[in-house]
């Protein structure tokens, strides 16, 4: 279960960021922001291969004591960042991948909505619902 999920636009501003409310959300915001550097580094590392070979799932961006940050970037340079609590039973990689896949699918659905202007913050109940299922159930 994620502690914080964020969707960052191509221009590196957040389209959607949501954290488990019990904790200091600003901390997560900061974490996500700093993770963008790692994301940039990873996607630039591919070089010429570009999207063909560059995998969308970036994997663990960096771990800290408290939590781990995973990244995922789409072909349109929209980034998804998931922050999970390290204390949790470590989620398997494929679970993280599945979470990203669901995020991506929901994001695609949001994009398909003609009433959504790309670049707006994502205000979709369906998207929120999907994210809620992935967040840590607040105790």
């Amino acid at each position, binding site marked *: 279960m994620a502690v914080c999920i964020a969707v960052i636009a191509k221009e590196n501003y957040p389209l959607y960021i949501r954290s488990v409310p019990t904790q200091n959300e600003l901390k997560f915001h900061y974490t996500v922001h700093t993770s963008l550097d790692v994301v940039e580094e990873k996607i630039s590392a591919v070089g010429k291969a570009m999207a063909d070979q560059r995998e969308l799932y970036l994997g663990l961006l960096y771990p800290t004591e408290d939590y781990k940050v995973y990244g995922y970037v789409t072909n349109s340079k929209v980034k998804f960042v998931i922050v999970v609590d390290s204390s949790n039973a470590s989620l398997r990689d494929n679970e993280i991948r599945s979470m990203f896949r669901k995020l991506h699918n929901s994001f695609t659905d949001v994009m*398909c909505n003609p009433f959504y202007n790309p670049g707006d913050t994502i205000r979709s109940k369906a998207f929120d619902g999907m994210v809620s299922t992935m967040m840590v159930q607040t105790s």
Partner: protein
Amino acid sequence: MESLTLTDVEQKYYSDLFVYCDTDNTKKVASNGRVLDLFRAAQLPSEVVLQITELCGATRLGHFGRSQFYIALKLIAVAQSGLPLRVESLNSVKDLPLPRFVVAKNEQEARHTALYPDLENQGSYQGVIPRPPGRGQVKKVSTHEVIQPCVPTVEPQPDTTSPVVSPHHSPPLSPQAWRKHKRQASGGNVERQPVVVAGAVWTPFRDAQSGAVVASDGMWSAHSPPPVQESWVSLKDIHPPSSSTLPPMHPSSVQENSSIRTLASATASNEIQRQSSSGYDDPWKITDEQRQYYINQFKTIQPDLNAFIPGSAAKEFFTKSKLPILELSHIWELSDFDKDGALTLDEFCAAFHLVVARKNGYDLPEKLPESLMPKLIDLDDSAEVSDQAPDVGYSGSPVEVTPNKSPSMPSLNQTWPDLNQGNEQWETFSERSSSSQTLTQFDSNIAPADPDTAIVHPVPIRMTPSKIHMQEMELKRTGSDHTHPTSPLMAKPPEHSDEPKLATTLKFVSANSGDAYSSSDSYTSDQDPITSIVTRQRSHSGTSPEGLKVVAAPPPPPPRPHPSHSRSSSLDMNRTFAAVSTGPQQAGVVTYPPAVPPRPLPTQTSGTHSGHRSDEGLAAHSTTSPQQIPEQPNFADFSQFQAFAAADQPGDDGDKQPESLPVEKSSDGPGPLRTIKSDSQEERATAIVNTTKGPIMAPPPKPVRRRLKSEDELQDEAPPPMSNVIATVLATQASIPRSLGKDKKAIQASIRRNKETNTVLARLNSELQQQLKDLLEERISLEVQLEQLRPFSHL
């Protein structure tokens, strides 16, 4: 008759009631059922009703004229308020509440929007309508004022009916009352064009109008016991005044626009709102009138009911409803079931319904209500609907939903009455006149659904070679050129037994493939498959599961594409067919890769040629492919033909096929080959004619065609000399021994046909590829859904 002075509200109310009762539009109401129902709904003892009738003079006249009707209504009000019935009381009683009518039946739940905003203004309805807090009386008053001038205009309109809902009903009762009224109204409405609904609905989409505001107030509460409006006020009434019932969002503007919001229109819109909001029993059910309205609206955007509305067009359309973008976005999310960024008819109706509901004050649901979900199976049109589920193979609801789209399409087509009346009035959307753009957009959308494209998913076909081939031949013959494209595809299924399974999952394909699947075993008739293909085409727009379901009812198998393969199909296929035909036929014929197989022996090709010939002989079709087939073998087998007598057919078939390949390959000497071929064709013709149709049927055509094509490519000549031959060949479809001249013509014709087939097949191939991609995407999405459903183990 005593003079009757009515307040404006009463006037309006009564006029609406009168219109409601005046089904014949004769300006007088007989003591027919509606009037009686109305009076019964007044919950007065029968003797009182009788007395009223006498008093108003209807007994004397034998019918209710307008004045009599009004008098009767007023007397009802008098009686309901407990006053003795006196003629004098008509004018003497001041502040008489409006007569209350309680509809007993349970009609559709109606969002009885305040059809009579003015009535609401009267305050006597206060208890009834829990208006949204924002809606002050002010607006109502303004509306009321506005209404007055409108009242006269209302009168002439015959269609406004008014299931009288007692405004005095206590709120708990009112919903029920409304519902009843709604039902009653809808019953009456059904008779009239339910245009009203449309009109009402779209009024919101106009600039807010005072009437609309008031109406919207009523709508918000959904408890408005609009005494009068029940029926779908004819849009004529409504639209000219262009009352908008919706925009509760713009109360201020309402007042500004108060010019002509006739109550009629308001009520009409309320009616519509009510009906569209669907009552409490099933808040999300779409009434028939509503659906008709939606369908008409759909048509204005996209004339083809089976095609999509692209997202942008839908956005424009729904933006006119003045709902906040956020809500519209949510509505879109709910209604775009297959998440394809476009709305099919069902999706559009659902979205529209949700918009109307929202306008009426209903909160948007979190999930799409069941009644709004695109139905999998069309209720009426069962021809195509079938349990494709097994074929479909996927459980996701979107998938299931999509199949319904196509079946529902036919049913919708069948059930649509022509709401001309409404159409004109629905032209309120001036903005929507940009439909031309959308239409153009649709064209692109429609393209895939074009029946002619005949995207036929490969369908596994249990082949009894001879029978299948026969059928294919027949199909080819009988089918139009349209079906031709499919035929090659159809030919493929046998070989790709696995692919059909996949195909079923494809959306589009499912329609077609489903057909194929269900009918794979039985090639029945040509026309049926063709039609089924056509219908499937309709569902092409993303309703594949539906199509599959449709197909389940065993429609005749889609016309098998001509056995000959297109260029893309490997030559091996043809050869395989030939070989297979000779040997035991296997359903899952190996799908050879398109790579050119080594040329078989000439004997084989000649064999195929003979096989083709026999095909020709078999099929008395006049279409292209069959004719091509015979030509091709002959065409290809120039040298070999000579070598072979008309005798051994199997060998001939096999030979022909491989021979065709070599023929194609050889770029040099097509000319001489041709000439030789013509001769050999003659021989072949005779030989083939004698050959029995065997399993060779299927394979031979393919190589033949290809050969012909290659021939064409190789040389540009030939046509002139062949023309004669071809002409004669074409003329003689039946198994007839051909002369050399005929062969030439046939060859040329077959060459042409092969070319056409080639292009068609190439197109089909690309379409199939696209379908495959879509299918894979769908599969991925389904997997995601599956994961969603599966609870996280660790999380």
